[in-house]
């Protein structure tokens, strides 16, 4: 796509409102070279729509606050350059959809924090001496990169059906559990949680979550599939489960 020039006019079609009174509103802005969608949204907020609700913090794809759907695609607004999208048409910006809407571009993501509370936290052995090596943690560090943007939660078709929220933790929390389970010093067993409460077997490996992850975490291949294997081992081959647990290996 060609490079955006300063002063070029672009139209943004943003979902405004709350409750039942929702409408798309068009805003025309003069873009600057190198702008991302968030720059445009904040510019609109500062000059045309001071009450436009939007979340952001780092503006550098590090905090996971600015998730939205840009032209129907779940993205971080601060990482979506105007150069990379079609700006000859209005750019449509909507909030993420899997969670209750609050106002404008803000959705209510509290449910995710509730799920996290139910996960058994890091549990080292009492006398653990914490000597471990880079090769032991390369895998865990991948999971710990998660910035909690909840884009994976947003695209997962299981969570799009809101009733499933009580039975399915969603990809973000499989990543979280994988980070704990594969921590070389952790001793807890979260297989029952995975199976019964988190509903790991409801996932049918569509990989939609992996495709949207801005941190390039291989959610399905590296977290969900190995976790399913652990749950199965725990049930049918406890010895193998123990080996995996103790070695911290997949």
């Amino acid at each position, binding site marked *: 796509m060609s490079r955006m020039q*300063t002063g070029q006019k672009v139209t943004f079609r943003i979902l405004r409102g*709350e409750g039942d009174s929702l409408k798309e509103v068009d805003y025309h802005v003069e873009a*600057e*070279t*190198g*702008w*991302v969608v968030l*720059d445009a949204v904040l510019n609109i*907020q*500062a*000059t045309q729509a*001071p*009450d*436009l*609700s*939007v*979340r*952001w*913090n*780092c*503006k*550098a*794809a*590090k*905090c*996971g*606050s600015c998730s939205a759907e840009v032209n129907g695609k779940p993205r971080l607004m601060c*990482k979506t*350059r105007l150069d990379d999208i079609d700006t000859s048409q209005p750019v449509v910006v909507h909030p993420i959809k899997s969670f209750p809407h*609050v*106002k*404008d571009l*803000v959705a*209510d*993501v*509290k449910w995710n*924090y509730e799920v*996290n*509370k139910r996960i058994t*936290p*890091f549990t*080292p052995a009492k006398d*653990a001496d*914490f*000597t*471990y*090596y*880079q090769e*032991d*943690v390369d895998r*865990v*560090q991948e999971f*710990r*990169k998660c*910035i*909690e943007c909840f884009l994976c939660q947003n695209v997962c078709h299981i969570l799009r059906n809101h009733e499933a929220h009580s039975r399915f933790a969603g990809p973000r929390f499989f990543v979280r559990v994988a980070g*704990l389970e594969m*921590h070389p*010093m*952790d001793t807890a067993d979260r297989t029952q949680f995975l199976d019964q409460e988190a509903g790991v077997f409801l996932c049918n490996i569509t990989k939609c979550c992996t495709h949207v992850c801005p941190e390039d975490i291989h959610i399905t291949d590296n977290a969900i599939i190995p976790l399913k294997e652990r749950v199965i081992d725990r049930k049918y081959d406890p010895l193998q489960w123990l080996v995996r647990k103790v070695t911290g290996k997949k």
Partner: protein
Amino acid sequence: MAEYQTHEYDVIVIGAGGAGLRAAIESSAMGAKTALVCKSLLGKAHTVMAEGGMAAALANVDKADNWQTHFRDTVLGGKYMGNWRMQQLHAQESPERALELERWGAVFDRTPEGKINQRAFGGHTWKRLAHVGDRTGLEMIRTLQDKGVHQGIDVFMECTIVELLKDSGRVVGAFGYWRETGKFVVFKAKAVVMATGGIGKMFRVTSNSWEYTADGHALALRAGAELIDMEFVQFHPTGMVWPPGVKGILVTEAVRGEGGLLKNSQGERFMERYDPKRMELSTRDQVAKAIYTEVKEGRGTPHGGVWLDISHKDAEYIKKKLPSMYHQFKDLADVDITTSPMEIGPTMHYIMGGIRVVPESGAATVPGLFACGECSGGMHGGNRLGGNSLSDLLVFGKRAGEGAALFARDNGAHVGFDDAQIKRTEQDVLRPFESRASHTPYDLHFELQDLMQDNVGIMRTGDDLKTAIAVFPAFNEKLRGARVEGSRMFNPGWHLAWDMVNMLLIAEVVARAALQREESRGAHTRLDFPKTDSGGYWETVNSCATYEDGRVGMGLIPKPVMPAELKALVDATA
């Protein structure tokens, strides 16, 4: 107070960055019923953005390191302005705080011996920064967040505190609103810990987010606390300068720690002329001023910066050690840092000054109030060393949490409230909805940013500072009339109106403190007083701001004198 939602706690902690989380964990571990309040969602505080690492003399890589050397580096880095006792506690306790974080599940990069790896950083004698690639802050905040949540701390997210509540000279709670609904909420508490972070949003070019509107500084000052060292504003030497949308975003010092070179448009490694010994790993104040000078004298890059180049290192190594920098430049500037240099320049980054506290307990000068993290003062003096903030958060977060819990225990009963104060504050906060003026808080925010950048920025003169100070009263008037549109539901324009009240107050404090200090030292540079008063009067005093009858008072207090044995440590090797 039936009309407000009201919560009662032993301790409330305002701010959920590293400092606030660590404070809340400690307070609750001591048995105090503890709440944590923050403006953003949990886990999104500034701490999440910290990249390079956390300084702690673990001596895992350079065996010669110890707390004494860390202490000396911090004293020298702070240009003798810091509080020696805080600097001592910090150097002594940060290794234990880092190990504790590891025991709570943080996964630091490892040495070949299986220990926490450490990297070099500006002003640190040895390789000292425990790190996780270039996302150390994320690791810290996630670890603390999970520890805290599972320990039973109640978290109130997206709730902005607008004023501290006082009764009989003591802080007894806090008053705020829910960002989502705009409804007000009262927190009654026996002790309050302030951990709100910094003030960067009053500058045009900054690495700081929308949250850094000086709230904690302003609330504490209005509640009767003192602010020290507010003239010391850190401009980080390496922020992005292009494209325009990313101007100011931080380029971690770890790039230089990993061997990145600074060059001007003529390809010269110009640090040779400013600090030939330490070169790129000189302290931030020196490097920032060097870059400023290079650009000013015509040796800058096309977009008014200089080059930072790490492309001589192996591409895989760069991607492994600096993954988020690699992506940041690739995604936002179309630059591949494994083959091309980065264009960088100074960006406002950190406020050394802050709430004056008792080193051991974090107690502020007003009873019932405690402070830790970036909003507190004293630890970093005239210039902060990279990596010393993350360790500061843990060391003094723990101490403030403990201090607050003990205060709450010893000062048992909840005391009363001044209902009139709450009513008054509510009216003030809602006033913008009634305005018919043409200007919005955004307009004024841009004006303030220009004013601060141009007059209270990296290079200062008495005249410029006076210009800024003269403008504030009219500015305040204008702000009282600023117009807000829409409802109280998640309304950022309305939120900014009160944030601006806080920013304006603290902008004035910064400008007055800067005008008062007639020398150049650390991050404070006066073109009209270019010399550092080494060993002289200005080395013996800290600026100290107060607030009475609606006015800022600015004065000087004697700097606590370092005991002889510590001074010997500093002098012996200086």
